[in-house]
């Protein structure tokens, strides 16, 4: 810390950034604004947040509050200039605080341990004295061995009258662990900044068989990839008969300058990487382009004549042995009924495929309705004829998150440093020990003093052990 308050403007700024109070204020402001960011959903359509705000503040003021928050950048706040500025202020405070305290810590780290007067040992946080019989050289030998066994490299200094003092320290560098942790935060922030300046986050939807040379930041902003990517195939696997996907995979091929350079099957948790761009499996669906979808239907009349047919949307077919014609009018990959009984498609995935067929006989409409692949009871027509909805082969598309982030390795590196820094900070300590051996009348008086900047109790245990070893020294104990 500064001994006197700085007088120049720069000194004042420095002192402000170096103060814990300032750091705490920045901490608090980041935390509080972040809370707002978790309540107001980020980067979504305005209606969603107006609903939330209406619940919190009432209908009359909600739109106004929305507008104010919108102008302040709260709808995409983690990327707003002021939030980035807060993070930078936080980083500066961290740097300046660290530099400000560094000399003191370095002194503690570099200053070698030296012998201290025996009276001072009694004032240490960990202390122990014992009187034993024996010869100083023997006791010294035992103490040295025990200290070495505990990982210390003891030095020796004479204290007069034939006495001596052994002293040692270890883990002095552990005081720097906290700096490692602080540096790691800066490294991670740097990696994050690099990623957001030089990288991109995009999305790409590819039908099976389709090729693309761009990804999309948003529907109107394509980003060139520098190569082409083709989706050869897409499959989704479910748990038993449920809607719940077990796994979905895309077979991808990377094409550069007209040549296939890479093939890989991606799935969730296993992306494809090429030239710094990563493709993550994130969603899937059935293409809305239903022109190419093929139905597999087994049509049978009530007297048992049956045929398997493969019509497409808008095709017509006849029930064998009758003059009834079916007309496939609609298809939905996932059909549900709303409370009023109206049908709607609830997902783009093949969760509950259904088709709407209209039946006519001799030009007059007989009946019509939805046929669900999963519900056989919907297959039977009122007159006993039957249309089994066996399958639908549609073009499926794969949805991929596309990312380029040159900063990600820096972030990972920062994470490793952070783990290391935390380990050193919390699980290692700077331990110092002095063992004073002096003649006292006929006996030998051993005084042990020790200190540890962390986890004192564990070190105390070690000192107890050392005292026991010395007490049971070569000449027996007292």
């Amino acid at each position, binding site marked *: 810390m500064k001994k006197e308050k700085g007088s120049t403007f720069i000194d004042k700024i420095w002192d402000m950034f170096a103060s*814990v109070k300032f750091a705490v204020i920045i901490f608090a402001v980041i935390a509080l604004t972040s809370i707002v960011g978790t309540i107001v959903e980020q980067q979504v359509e305005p209606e969603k947040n107006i609903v939330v705000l209406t619940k919190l503040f009432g209908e009359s003021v909600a739109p106004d509050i929305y507008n104010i928050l919108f102008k302040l950048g709260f709808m995409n706040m983690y990327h707003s200039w002021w939030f980035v500025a807060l993070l930078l202020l936080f980083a500066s405070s961290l740097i300046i605080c660290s530099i400000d305290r560094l000399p003191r810590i370095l002194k503690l780290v570099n200053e070698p341990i030296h012998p201290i007067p025996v009276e001072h040992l009694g004032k240490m946080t960990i202390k122990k004295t014992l009187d034993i019989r024996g010869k100083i050289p023997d006791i010294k030998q035992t103490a040295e061995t025990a200290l070495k066994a505990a990982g210390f490299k003891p030095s020796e200094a004479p204290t007069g009258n034939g006495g001596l003092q052994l002293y040692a320290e270890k883990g002095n560098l552990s005081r720097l662990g906290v700096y490692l942790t602080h540096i790691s935060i800066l490294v991670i922030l740097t990696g994050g900044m690099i990623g957001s300046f030089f990288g991109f986050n995009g999305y790409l939807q590819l039908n099976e068989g389709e090729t693309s040379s761009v990804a999309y930041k948003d529907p109107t902003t394509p980003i060139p990839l520098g190569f082409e990517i083709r989706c050869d195939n897409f499959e989704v696997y479910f748990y038993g008969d449920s809607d719940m996907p077990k796994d979905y995979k895309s077979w991808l091929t990377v094409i550069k300058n007209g040549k296939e350079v890479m093939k890989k099957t991606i799935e969730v*948790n296993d992306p494809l990487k090429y030239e710094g761009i990563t493709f993550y499996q994130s969603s899937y669906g059935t293409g809305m382009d239903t022109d190419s979808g093929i139905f597999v239907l087994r049509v049978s009349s009530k007297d048992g004549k049956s045929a398997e047919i493969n019509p497409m949307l808008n095709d017509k077919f006849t029930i064998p042995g009758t003059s009834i014609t079916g007309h496939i009018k609609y298809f939905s990959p996932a059909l549900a009924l709303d409370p009023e009984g109206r049908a709607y498609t609830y997902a783009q995935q093949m969760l509950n495929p259904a088709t709407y067929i209209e039946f006519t006989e001799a030009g007059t409409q007989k009946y019509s309705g939805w046929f669900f692949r999963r519900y056989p009871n919907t297959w039977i027509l009122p007159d006993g004829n039957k249309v089994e909805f066996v399958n639908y082969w549609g073009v499926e598309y794969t949805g991929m998150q596309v990312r380029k982030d040159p900063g990600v390795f820096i972030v990972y590196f920062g*994470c490793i440093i952070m783990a290391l820094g935390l380990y050193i900070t919390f699980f290692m300590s700077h331990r110092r020990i002095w063992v004073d051996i002096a003649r006292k009348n006929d006996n030998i008086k051993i005084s042990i003093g020790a200190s540890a900047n962390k986890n004192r109790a564990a070190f105390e245990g070690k000192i107890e052990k050392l005292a026991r070893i010395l007490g049971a020294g070569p000449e027996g104990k007292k």
Partner: protein
Amino acid sequence: MDSSTFFGLSTVAYVLSMILYIFYLAFRNNQIGIIATTFAITGFLSQTLAIATRWKEFYDLGQMGFLRAAPLTNLYESLIFFIWCLMLVYLIIEFKYRNRSFGAFVTPVAVLALAYIDISGMSRNIQPLVPALQSNWLLAHVMMSFIAYALFAISFSTGLMCLILRTERRNETAYIFWTLMLSVFVITLGAMGLDFLKFKLVVTGQEELIHNYLFKASFRSGSALVSALSWAISIAVTFLIWRFGHSLKKIIEGFHLSAEILDDLTYRCIATGFPVFTLGGLIFGAIWADQAWGKYWTWDPKETWSLITWFIYAFYLHSRLIKGWKGKKAAMVAVFGFLAVIFTYLGVNLLLSGLHSYG
């Protein structure tokens, strides 16, 4: 026997041990204490068996790697694991410090979590894993997060006890702070108990039912009278705790628990929990998110709230190590930190939307 039998057994044992620990605190009878510990250990052992059985059941069902079948995939399983960690840490402390009086402060947290499982009617079925959860990071990330949460829960209990011991006057901030915290805790437990008594027959549903059942027997009751009465009773309880809080102090003092030990224990739990949380919760979480979603940090509510929690505990450690805060001030930060943990863990899933919706 299947996992649910063991879970049932452990629930009963934990509830009994909580009651006995509280009796032990009140009557200072050693035999009661021993029985309380016995129940706590029984509960812990049967819960261990339950988790192991469930792991096996999940493994048999899921056709996947053994490590990936860790039963840590939804809110129910994570709460169970949290309780398990909490009791483990607690039992270690009880044996190490040879003092049972923490029990009366820790077991209610476990029982609160169990009560919450019961009344929220959350799904206990073994559900197959959605693709995003099929990763080896699941075990490391979730396990370490919950070990940290359990340590933070202990620091909350010891911090609260430390505040009880250190406060003298009824008008000091720290006294008002702890009586208020304890009241909120007691009232929540009570309200959940009422929900449980009233709705236990209809508990069948899913996690959405949390919205429909939580506090419906009291604060959120359809009848305005019941709701008003609940608030009145809450205020009365808060007042009583505030008025007679000092008697708790006498009880704790009777156990020769010094504020220094409690302060030290709070610090140690946080100093262990913080690095575990940073590594397992934040760093492993980020690495996993990077692999699954293509972004290591998206400012998702869960991520943001864990960062806020991390800030609070970082503040605790800095205030202690740099400014030398001890006792009351530090304990208040520790108690406050655990509120952030609860919100990160439960509040985010209940109240906010985001990618991280498994628990």
